[in-house]
Structure formats: structure tokens, C-alpha cells
């Protein structure tokens, strides 16, 4: 038995990197400290896909990696509108190869951000984002606002490591030195801890942001008595909490990005932070889901100029979520082959988009069986990044961390698999060119 320290958790966007595990016979047998319940579950693993498979007469049959990769390359090389989706639960090194593959085949490459914080990115493209790393919050933020986000359930270590419950240089007393405000449509375990909880009517976030902004800008007089179910008094209290803080941070979740006004809720949230900044110091940050959803966005941006939903049909990058995001391509029935990696659109896309997966050839690369495997024609199992393979990931605050390889494996890594597919595609194209 050996103890491995400083293990990086490959689960959510918090990317906790102080985890200790016990390894025995090439398996993580115990998580000693650092990980939350969800992280522990990931680190200790589940039932794996045993072998690559190809669907023959409706049934998945085991085959070799070579066969599966070759078949996948053939499908992709001839596709007219291929989609390469996922990329958030793998490392940046794999993402890079994926982008090169998309470019090679004139495909659309997109990651899970498009159904998660894609709208946040669109908002940043409108107005930018005053942000900071999580340690800055831990050391300075005396007002923490969670808006449409429930970290107690979705990012369980977040408050303890980085925000409300953590102790920092200028806030040695931890939560005694801080205030917590929560805006949500329902009571949550997070809202119960808050000094101010505004229970907003669904779909009214945009209005509430505008009201808080108007107060912060000095126009309390024009704000009506109630906005989105929140009395004016409470709106003014929230604005005053912002004004009186030394450093405020708003964390927002999908409660804001997925409801009415979507990306424009975030535009308004950012504008509200800018208005608060006229009085004090403020920052705002999306609560990113997958541990490397941000990493793909980073890599895709430096390689193509755009963070996700990039369409290479014409040889150069064209970016237009709403047209070039995965749900658009599947929901509108545009795409003719899909490669899915490190994600599960069958579980997370609207039914009509999922149904299109049933109509077209689907290649899936993943360590685990998941509902998308039900639709797959080619299944390629891979090593688990952060446990069996190493590489770069980007935390929700853009801090790059290298996840570790803790145990050995016979599975090929995502990076190797995609690289091999790319090589096969190039070989096919070269042959065609002759």
C-alpha cells in the first residue's frame, strides 16, 4: 500500500489538488482526505468498458483498438458535416489533437460548455468579465454572493476551500469576517447559510440585476416596489451590502445561464459587478462544471481564436453558437457523423437532439458505459485522466493545473486514440488526393 499526496481531483471545476489517496495493487483503494463525496466516487471508480466495440447487425461486438480506430477514421473522413463533441472531462493535450482532427475533416468541434456556461462566454464577449483567481477570494472577499448556484450540492468543497467558509490573509476569522448572500428560485442548503436570501421568481433574474444596478448607479427612486418577487427593500439591502464590502464576489451557476434571457442574464450580472466596482472592488465568476470544461475553451481559443462551437467547414474557423453548437447541429438534424468523447450528450441534450444521434453513425470514446454508448456504432474505451493519464486542466478561475497519473493502465489515453484517428484520416485523405 502506498499513499499518494497532492492528487488532483478530475471531477468538477474546483479542481481540488490537495487530495491524498491510498493505492494498492494499482488501484485507488481509499481516499484519505481532500475529496468531497462526488470526487471520492470518481476517484474510486466504477465498472469500465472492457474492450473496443463495433456495432454489427445492431449488436456491439468486441474488437481491437486498431479496428475501431480505422473504422472511426473512415466514417469521419467521408463525412460532410461531422460533429466532434465533448472534450471537457479529458486533458488539454487530447483537446489539441481533437481540434486538429476537426480542422482536418472540416468538422464542427464543440465542448460541453455549449450546454453549460456557453452563455457565460457569450456574455464575456459582449462586456468582458472582472474576475480573479480563487485564492484572491479566499484572502480578500468579505461578501460572497451565490446567484442561481448551489455549491453545497454541485461544488461541495468550493465554500470551504475558496470562499465563504475559508480563512484568508485579510479574513483570518473565516466566515465570521464575511457575509453570504444567495439568490435562487428555491431554498437550498446554501441559501440556508446566507445572511440575505432572495427567492426570485423563475425567469426574472435579468430584471433583478437591472434593479440592483439601478440602485448601485444611484437611481433607487425609479426602481418599483417589487421586482421578480423581491421587495425593493431587499434589493436596496443587497446593493448596500455590495457597496459596504471591501471586496465582493458573485458566483453564478446554471440557474442563471439556462433560464429566460440566458447569456444576457450574465451580461447583466457582469454589468452589475461593474456598477458595484464604482464603489468598491468586485469580481464575478461562473461555477464551471466539468474539471476541464474551461481547459477546452482555453485551448480552442488559442488554437482557433474561439472558445467552443467552432465550424471548420470552410477551412477557417467560424464561430456562432446558436448555429454551430452541438445542440444546434443535432437538434436541426444537420450533422451526419458524431464523435463523442469524454461526455454523455444522450443524458444531457434535449430529446430531439438525442434522437438524431440514433439516426447517424456515432463514435464514442469514454472510460465508462453511459447512455450515449446505447447509440454508438463504435465504442473506444480510454484511460481515466487524472487517475490513469496525466495532462493539463484549467480550473474555473483559469488556473492551469497538471492532473497526475496515479495508477497504471492498459487502456489507451484519449490523446493517443484521437491522435491515431487523425493519422488514419490523414492517410485516407492522402490516398484520395493521389
Amino acid at each position, binding site marked *: 500500500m502506498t499513499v499518494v499526496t497532492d492528487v488532483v481531483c478530475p471531477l468538477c471545476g474546483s479542481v481540488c489538488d490537495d487530495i491524498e489517496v491510498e493505492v494498492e495493487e494499482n488501484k485507488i483503494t481509499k481516499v484519505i482526505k481532500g475529496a468531497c463525496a462526488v470526487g471520492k466516487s470518481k476517484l474510486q471508480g466504477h465498472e469500465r468498458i472492457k474492450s473496443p466495440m463495433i456495432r454489427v447487425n445492431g449488436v456491439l461486438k468486441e474488437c481491437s483498438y486498431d479496428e475501431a480506430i480505422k473504422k472511426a477514421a473512415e466514417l469521419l473522413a467521408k463525412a460532410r458535416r461531422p460533429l466532434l463533441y465533448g472534450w471537457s472531462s479529458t486533458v488539454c493535450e487530447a483537446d489539441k489533437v481533437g481540434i486538429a482532427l476537426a480542422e482536418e475533416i472540416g468538422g464542427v468541434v464543440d465542448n460541453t460548455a455549449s450546454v453549460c456556461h456557453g452563455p457565460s462566454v457569450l456574455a464575456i464577449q459582449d462586456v468582458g468579465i472582472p474576475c480573479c483567481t480563487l485564492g484572491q477570494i479566499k484572502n480578500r472577499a468579505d461578501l460572497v454572493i451565490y446567484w442561481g448556484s448551489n455549491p453545497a450540492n454541485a461544488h461541495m468543497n468550493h465554500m470551504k476551500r475558496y470562499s465563504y467558509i475559508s480563512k484568508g490573509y485579510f479574513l483570518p476569522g473565516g466566515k465570521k469576517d464575511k457575509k453570504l448572500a444567495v439568490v435562487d428560485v428555491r431554498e437550498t442548503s446554501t441559501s440556508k447559510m446566507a445572511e440575505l436570501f432572495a427567492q426570485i421568481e423563475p425567469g426574472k433574474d435579468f430584471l433583478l440585476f437591472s434593479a440592483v444596478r439601478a440602485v448601485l*448607479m444611484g437611481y433607487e427612486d425609479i426602481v418599483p416596489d417589487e421586482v421578480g418577487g423581491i421587495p425593493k427593500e431587499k434589493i436596496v439591502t443587497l446593493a448596500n451590502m455590495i457597496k459596504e464590502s471591501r471586496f465582493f464576489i458573485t458566483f453564478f451557476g446554471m440557474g442563471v445561464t439556462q433560464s429566460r434571457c440566458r447569456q444576457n442574464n450574465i451580461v447583466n450580472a457582469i454589468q452589475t459587478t461593474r456598477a458595484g466596482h464604482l464603489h468598491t472592488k468586485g469580481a464575478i465568476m461562473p461555477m464551471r462544471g466539468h474539471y476541464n470544461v474551461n481547459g477546452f475553451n482555453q485551448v480552442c481559443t488559442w488554437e482557433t481564436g474561439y472558445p467552443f462551437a467552432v465550424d471548420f467547414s470552410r477551412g477557417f474557423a467560424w464561430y*456562432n453558437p446558436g448555429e454551430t453548437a452541438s445542440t444546434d447541429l443535432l437538434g436541426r438534424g444537420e450533422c451526419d457523423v458524431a464523435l463523442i468523447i469524454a461526455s454523455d450528450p444522450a443524458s444531457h441534450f434535449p430529446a430531439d437532439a438525442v434522437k438524431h444521434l440514433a439516426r447517424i453513425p456515432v463514435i464514442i470514446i469514454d472510460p465508462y458505459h453511459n447512455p450515449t454508448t446505447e447509440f454508438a456504432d463504435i465504442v473506444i474505451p480510454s484511460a481515466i485522466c487524472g487517475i490513469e493519464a496525466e495532462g493539463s486542466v484549467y480550473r474555473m478561475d483559469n488556473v492551469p493545473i497538471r492532473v497526475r497519473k496515479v495508477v497504471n493502465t492498459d487502456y489507451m489515453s484519449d490523446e493517443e486514440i484521437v491522435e491515431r484517428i487523425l493519422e488514419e484520416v490523414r492517410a485516407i485523405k492522402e490516398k484520395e488526393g493521389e
Partner: protein
Amino acid sequence: MQMIKLMVKDDVMSGVAKIPIEVDSLTPDNLFGKNEAEIKAVKVWWGNRQENTGDLFEVSVDGAAGSADEVKIVFEGDLTRVKHIGDGMKAGEIEAHGDVDMHCGAVMEGGRVTVKGNADCWAGREMRGGELVIEGDAADNLCAMYRGEMTGMTGGKVTVGGNAGECVGQYMAGGEIVIKGNADVLAGYAMRGGRIVIEGDAAIPGADMIKGEIIVKGDVEMLPSFKYIGVETIEAETYDKYIGDYAMGEKKAKGTLYVRKK
């Protein structure tokens, strides 16, 4: 006058995947002076490959034109996956018989596009001039900006016979949009100039606007950051007048929102 008919071939849209055709090369400016064979050879993008127009469309040419102004292109067949109709056109006329896909009339500078059906997102995106008529509904981001730009439509006129989706005229700086039906959330978002008339209902119009004019004749879900000024009469109708958006600060809040009195 020259009439060019382009009918999408049936088999093009009959596959399992409906792959969009992008026809920004098929504008009066570009087709003027070409004969039928030459038009058939004009390249259009179909997914990740370029094809001859003649392979995807039945092409017929009738009459002659002395300039692009005298060219009229008629699109027929299943147009629901035909994108960029009239994108960038400067002169002449396009008529689309049916529902059209995204970016219809985007960046157009002159001429006229008529859609005898609905138009999908980004119709009239960054429009500079000319006229766009959508007889049915317009989907979201009608006459909006491209991502990240601070300028949307700057000129021309757009009329929508039915309803319009979210963010009509986002970052609009000039020109006029008339919606006969309702407009979904955030019409005139971050508007900097020009005029939007909504004859039906509107939800939270005018957010972050700093200039320009929005007129709503139906019901309005108001933002909490507009200031009521008083009553004004426009074309013999009485309107409540608001100034905003005060969320942008008083110095910038120079947009006007008129709501017809019931």
C-alpha cells in the same frame, strides 16, 4: 429585367442529415452578367465541400439585365437549410418562397430581399442598407450584431409580418425595424440608434440602450430601470414615454421607449 430561378433539388434535402447549403455567392451582384451555364458553375458550400450551384439547384434564367439592379433571384423548394440568402448583397432583388435558414440578408448594403415565409436566426445581421421583408416570423437575433461587436444594424429597413424572437436589433445603431406581431425578450438590447416599432407585445425591451427609439403598441413587461417621463402623442395615438436605461447611468441613459396607452 432578368429572372434567375433557383430551385433546391429534392434529393439534396432528403437524406438522414439535412446539411445546410450556404448561398452567399448567389447574389444579384455576383450572378449579374453570367449565363445559365456560368451560374450553374458558381460554387456554393454544402457542408465542408464546395459544389456547383447546378448540382444542388434546378437553374433557369429568363430575360436580360443591364446591371445587378435588374437581376431578380427567386429561391424555391425546401429552403429550411439554405443559409446566407442575400448575405452581403448590394443591389437587385431576391425572393425566397418558403421558410429560410439563418443569416438571410446579413450585412446587406442595398437591394431588396423578400421572404415569403419565416426566417431563422440572424436575419439582417449587421445590415447596412436596403430592404428586408419577412412575411412570416423572424427568429432570434434579428438585425443584431455579430458576437462581440458593438455595432449591429446601421441602416436599411426591415419589416416582419409576424412575430420576432429574442434580441431584435441588439446593438442597433441606425435604420428601422417594424414588427407587426410580438417581440420576445430584449428587443433593442444595448441599442445605440435607429428605431424599432413593435405593433404587438414586448418583454423587457430597451435594456442597456443608450440611444434610439423603441415604440410598442401592445403590452410591455417593463424593466425596473426606466424612468417615466410623461405622456406624448405620436400619429394621433397617446403613448407613455420612458427614458433609459438608467442601469447604464444617467449620462448614458438617452434611449426612448414609448408604450401605447390602453
